[in-house]
């Protein structure tokens, strides 16, 4: 490692101000600090700093996402083989999924990080690690046959319009990964909805057997075909059609456990989102004018992107509410609205994405009222004294 360090120290001057590759200063810094934690010491304020930093935090989130990535790869292969009426081994399923999904991940990272590096350089900032998470989340919330160029366009849109125009990491209003998905959803609806997009090969349509429908449980439920819903166990394990990473509640819960044990995601948000979903489910059960509304409330949490959204999307600390009370309100409304949109609105079979984006926009307002309460308390205290 010493020789590597020596090499970095040798080439470093070229990337600093006045060097040959000055334009790559931020990029160089990003790679250097990735390899070696900086030797910078405290100069004012506290003399010691916590060992936790942004890199470690984001790395843990990526680690938490890995189970859903692996399961998504297996599930992609599994459904492709099923749709074409073939049998395969577990490894064949996984390998096929890997070949499909890995390029999407690469495109997402290359495009997103490229833009991030350029903006960081332009602003004279260090590169923020936030996109390491967004870059892996984007592939997981889109259908497997989304063309790579669409992934690239959506990622670019999300990073530039969703994040950089607001001032970059930490300043964005909406979750960047969901911004990418919303862009695709409204710009290329034929690739994002329907029954044929969820299984690899169905859009091309070659060799698909007639008995395979490819419809997601949500689509079946929206059509009122409650008898065609998979079993609760299948919905929990996740061997059902859907976006790449959203299907397995089990894999998502492993991720949730990692995030909660390390204290990185807010338990308040995750729990209140689930509670919100259940409450709406129960309200629908009371009215129950159609078959979908009779669906047991807890099954809403297993369907579609609910669990994925609650664990990985709603908890984005930048776009979520910032105050403790605000987080509970924010999470509850996400769950509540997601199920409402899903069941009541005929245009959208899934409501999680819209519910989270909507609440992202409202999060500052929720915080505003929570903080206003604190301010009023302080004013009242002053008046009582006076």
């Amino acid at each position, binding site marked *: 490692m010493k020789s590597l360090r020596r090499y970095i120290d040798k080439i470093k001057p070229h990337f600093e101000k006045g060097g040959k590759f000055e334009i790559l200063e931020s990029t160089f810094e990003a790679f250097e600090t990735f390899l070696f934690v900086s030797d910078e010491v405290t100069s004012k304020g506290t003399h010691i700093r916590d*060992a936790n*930093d942004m890199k470690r935090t984001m790395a843990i989130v990526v680690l938490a996402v890995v189970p859903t990535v692996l399961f998504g790869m297996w599930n992609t292969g599994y459904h492709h083989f099923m749709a074409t009426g073939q049998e395969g081994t577990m490894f064949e399923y996984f390998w096929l999924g890997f070949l499909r999904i890995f390029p999407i991940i690469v495109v997402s990272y290359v495009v997103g990080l490229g833009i991030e590096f350029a903006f960081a350089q332009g602003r004279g900032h260090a590169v923020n690690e936030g996109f390491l998470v967004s870059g892996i989340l984007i592939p997981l919330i889109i259908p497997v046959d989304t063309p790579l160029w669409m992934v690239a366009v959506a990622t670019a849109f999300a990073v530039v319009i969703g994040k950089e125009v607001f001032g970059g990491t*930490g300043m964005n209003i909406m979750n960047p990964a969901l911004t990418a998905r919303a862009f695709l959803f409204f710009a290329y609806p034929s690739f994002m909805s329907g029954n044929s997009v969820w299984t690899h090969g169905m859009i091309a349509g070659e060799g698909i057997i007639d008995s395979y429908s490819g419809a997601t449980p949500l689509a079946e439920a929206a059509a009122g075909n409650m008898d065609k819903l998979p079993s609760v166990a299948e919905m929990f394990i996740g061997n059902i059609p859907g976006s790449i990473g959203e299907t397995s509640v089990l894999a998502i819960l492993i991720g949730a456990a990692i995030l909660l044990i390390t204290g990185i995601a807010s338990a308040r948000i995750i729990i209140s989102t689930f509670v919100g979903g259940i409450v709406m489910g129960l309200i629908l059960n009371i009215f129950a004018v159609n078959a979908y509304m009779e669906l047991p409330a807890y099954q809403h949490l297993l369907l579609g992107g609910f669990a994925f959204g609650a664990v990985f999307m709603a908890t984005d600390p*930048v776009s979520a509410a910032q105050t403790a009370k605000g987080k509970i309100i924010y999470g509850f409304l996400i769950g509540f609205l997601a199920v409402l949109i899903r069941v009541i609105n005929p245009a959208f079979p899934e409501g999680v994405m819209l519910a989270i984006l909507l609440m992202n926009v409202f999060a500052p307002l929720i915080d505003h009222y929570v903080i206003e309460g604190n301010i009023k308390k302080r004013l009242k205290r002053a008046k009582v004294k006076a």
Partner: protein
Amino acid sequence: MSKVNKIKKGLNINMLGAAEKIIKKADQAEFYAVKPTDFQGIRPKLVVKIGDKVKAGTPLFYDKFQPEVQFTSPVSGEVVEINRGERRVILEVVVRADAVIEYEEFIVGDPANLSREEIIKVLQKSGLWPAIRQRPYSTLANPNDTPKSIFISAFDSAPLAPDMDYVSKECTDCFQKGIDVLSKLTDGTIHLNLNAEYPAAETFTEAKGVQINKFTGPHPSGNVGVQINKVDPINKGDIVWYTYPQEIIAIGRFFEKGIYDATKIIALTGSEVKNPKYYKIINGASIKNLAAGNIDDGELRYISGNVLTGSKITGEGYVGYYDNQVTVIPEGNHHEFLGWATPGFKKATASRALFSSLLFGKKFRIDTNINGGPRAFVMSHEYNKVFPMDIYPVQLIKSIMIEDIDKMEQLGIYEVDEEDFALCEYVCTSKIEVQSIIRTGLDLMRKEMS
């Protein structure tokens, strides 16, 4: 019995090098210094020049804004150095001490028979007035104000902090005398705040003329700002004065003997100190003698004060006016290969992102590496966990960053000081310099209000 205020949010950073309870008398240092930078918001005007002879209690400089307030030499000797920093700001006025210290004689009298004005006057002359500070802003107390109360934090909860009961227990009489002096300065209550987790020294429990408040919980429970917030919060327009046991003892001793005797006990702490112990010194002493032979090798950070709020000094630097401890820790100016991905059994953290968080009670050797790099605000729930006041820290910080005076006021800037945010700064994954932001806000506010 007074009710116990339970502080739940906070953090005790487990560090190696707590001082053993033995008081050693250090050899008298050769050099002593008074540092204008210890005093918030003053503009020093020198009254001595290099070569002048001074006694203990002779003024070295005064404050341009409050010219009555003298800052006096803690020892007798010769002014040998006036160190200046950027834009010729005076950093240190250094005095070479005589072998036997001579004192200026002050006519004091019995505080019980003196008026408020007489007490203030003699304190200002002696160099002990700066021992009393005010909230908001943490500046020197202004004698023209009438504080609604005076707060004394009689325990220090900071990392490796000295036990204030232990250092004060020999001076019960002086402490009481100091309290008597303080009681002349306010019509309000004098709050003496104790830690309820162990029986406090009789110096404090038997003190008369005070209201005793008890606290439990992790740091910053010993911070006077937190205590004020829990007991009698500051509203707009309120002024609260505050001071600490050793300062009160010095005031009491001054009225006892009529001389400025700046003796105090400090703890020499930190992982790089071979035998961390308590030392009896004269305020402003160079730490050279304390450090000699007692410090491990390597590149080190010497801190007058604790690791969260202290100031960086050299190995021959001087103990700050208000500091009760000196901390020595290793510098962290080294690279670590893939350091962000290591399991981190040896690194201290308040989060649960490293395996060291499983090692309850382990004491760490923490260096000065910032462990990362500065980033934008991302994690929103970190500060709340270590900030026990009824204030939204992130929002207050952001209001300071955009210099929104009204918002700062609404969000409670009058109640806070830099030190209250030190733990926020420590835990911050974005490595933001929170304390300096708060100081900017306080200065801005003070300018606005004056």
